[in-house]
C-alpha cells in the first residue's frame, strides 16, 4: 500500500471509529498507538478525556477558579504525560468531564472518558464492567460524630440513627454489621458527603458512616465550628481507590500500570500525598506507604 493511498484511506476514515480499521491504517492515525483502541481513539481525537468528581476534596474537585485538581487528578496527569510521549503528541488536549457515582461506570464503559480520576473503590464486582489502575489510596468505613458525643465504635450506636451514602460500600457493610450484631441502628440515606455531615451537625443522626479519609478531610476543613466533628472507630471495611479505565484494552492497562509503578518507585506518589493532605494535617497511613512500596514494581 503506497503512502499516498494510505493517506487517502486515513482521511476517509476520519470521524469513523478507528476500532474497525486494520492495524496498518491505525498506525497512520497515531504513531505509537499500536493495537490499543483507547490510544487510537485518543490519537484520533487529539484529546484525552479525564472524568473527575466535583466536590471530593482533596482527591478530585473543582476549585474556586473552576480548575479541576486534586490528588487523584495529579496522578492521572502522570498518565497523560506518558500518553503524550507514547503518541508523540506534546500538544495533546485534555478534556475534563464532571462525573458522579451514577454515571461513572457507563461513561467509562462506553468510552466517553478515558481515565476516571475520582474516589472509586476497586472491587471485584466492578471488574465485570471496567478495568482498574494500581491502588493509590486506602481507606475504610469510619464514623463522623460530634466530638462531644462520646461515641467511639459502631457498637456504641446501637438503637441510634446513622446516615450513610446511598449505594455506597459503607452502607452495605453497616447493614451487614447491623443485621449480624442485632444493633438495631436505623439507617438514614444521604446523597453526598456534605449532606451526610449536615445531618450530623443538625442532630438528625448520631453518626455518619463513610470513607474515613474523606470524612477526616471534611472534619478538618469544613466543620462549622473547628473541632466540633471528629472521625472515630476502627476501619469497618477495606476500600482501596483506583483509577477506572475501559475494559478489554490490555495495552493501555499496561501503560497505566507502568506509570503508577514508576510514580510509586520514584517517591512521587508520596510527594503528591504530602502536597494534598499535608495542609490538612493528615499524615500518610503506614498501610498506604506499604502499598506504594509493594506496587513499585521494578523495571
Amino acid at each position, binding site marked *: 500500500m503506497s503512502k499516498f493511498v494510505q493517506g487517502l484511506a486515513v482521511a476517509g476514515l476520519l470521524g469513523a471509529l478507528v476500532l474497525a480499521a486494520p492495524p496498518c491504517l491505525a498506525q497512520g492515525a497515531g504513531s505509537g498507538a499500536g493495537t490499543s483502541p483507547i490510544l487510537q481513539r485518543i490519537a484520533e481525537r487529539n484529546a484525552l478525556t479525564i472524568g473527575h468528581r466535583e466536590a471530593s476534596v482533596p482527591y478530585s474537585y473543582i476549585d474556586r477558579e473552576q480548575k479541576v485538581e486534586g490528588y487523584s487528578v495529579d496522578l492521572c496527569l502522570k498518565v497523560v504525560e506518558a500518553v503524550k510521549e507514547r503518541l508523540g503528541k506534546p500538544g495533546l488536549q485534555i478534556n475534563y468531564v464532571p462525573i458522579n457515582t451514577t454515571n461513572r461506570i457507563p461513561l467509562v464503559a462506553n*468510552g466517553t472518558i478515558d481515565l476516571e480520576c475520582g474516589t472509586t473503590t476497586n472491587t471485584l464486582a466492578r471488574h465485570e*464492567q471496567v478495568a482498574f489502575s494500581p491502588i493509590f489510596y486506602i481507606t475504610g468505613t469510619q464514623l463522623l460524630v460530634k466530638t462531644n458525643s462520646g461515641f467511639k465504635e459502631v457498637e456504641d450506636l446501637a438503637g441510634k440513627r446513622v446516615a450513610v451514602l446511598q449505594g455506597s460500600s459503607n452502607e452495605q457493610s453497616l447493614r451487614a454489621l447491623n443485621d449480624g450484631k442485632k444493633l438495631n441502628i436505623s439507617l438514614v*440515606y444521604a446523597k453526598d458527603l456534605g449532606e451526610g455531615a449536615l445531618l450530623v451537625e443538625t442532630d438528625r443522626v448520631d453518626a455518619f458512616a463513610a470513607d474515613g479519609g474523606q470524612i477526616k478531610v471534611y472534619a478538618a476543613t469544613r466543620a462549622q465550628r473547628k473541632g466540633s466533628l471528629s472521625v472515630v472507630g476502627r476501619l469497618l471495611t477495606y476500600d482501596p481507590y483506583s483509577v477506572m479505565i*475501559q475494559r478489554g484494552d490490555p495495552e493501555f492497562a499496561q501503560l497505566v500500570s507502568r506509570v503508577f509503578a514508576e510514580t510509586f518507585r520514584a517517591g512521587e506518589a508520596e510527594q503528591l500525598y504530602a502536597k494534598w493532605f499535608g495542609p490538612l494535617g493528615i499524615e500518610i497511613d503506614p498501610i498506604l506507604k506499604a502499598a506504594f512500596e509493594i506496587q513499585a514494581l521494578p523495571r
Partner: protein
Amino acid sequence: MTYRWNWSVLVTEPYLGWLLSGLTWTLLVAGVAWIVALLIGTGIGILRTLPSRTARAFGAVYVEIFRNIPLLLQLFLWYFVIPELLPAEIGRWIKRDLPMPEFWTAALGLGLFTAARVAEQVRAGIEAVGRGQAMAAAASGLSTAQAYRHVLLPIAARNIVPPLTSEFLNIVKNSSLALTIGVLELTGQSRQIESNTFQGIEAFTAATLIYVLLTMLVIAAMRSVERATAIPGTLARA
C-alpha cells in the same frame, strides 16, 4: 462500548426486593401527597373564587409561594431548614422522634407543592362553570355555600378531571425527588442497585418501565372516573 449486559440482576434477590420496596415507597409518597394536594388544593382553589377579598388574597399568596419555588428546593427547605428555625424541642421531635421523618417530609412537601397547582385547576374549573350558573343559583335563593355545594363544585369537579390527571401523573413522577432527602423510592433503589452491581442501565430501564406502567394505570383509572361521573350533555365525553 464494553458494557456487559446482565438483565438477570433484576430478578435476583436482594435486587428484586429492592425494586419492589422502591415501588412501595413511590406509591406511598405519591398517594399521601395526592391526598394532601387534593384536600388543600380544593380549599385554596375555592378561596380564590369567593366574593371575600381577604380569602382571594390568601389563596393567591399560597399559590404564588408554592408555585414559584422549585420543588427540589422546597423539599430541602422542609427537611434541612425549617426544623432548625422552630423551637428546639419541636425541631428535635421532627428530626428524631417522628417515625419516618424523611417520608413524611417528602410526602407533605410534595403534597403542598402540588396543592398550588391543583388549586389553579379548581379555580379555573369553577370559573369555567360560568357566571350565569352562579347568578341563577343566587336567584333561586341559594346561599353562597349552597351554590358551591349544589351547583358550582359538582360541575367544576367533573370538568377538571382531565387536567387533574396530568397533576396526578406529575405527582407520581415528582415523587422521585424524595430520594434527595433519603427516601429510597423507585429511582433511589435503582441507584442503589447500580452502585451495588454496576448494572445501572438495567436498573434504570426497569425503573423507567415501572413508572410508565404506573402512569398508564393512573390514566386508565382517571379515565374511568371521568366516564363514571359524566353528565350527558356537559363538557365531559359521554
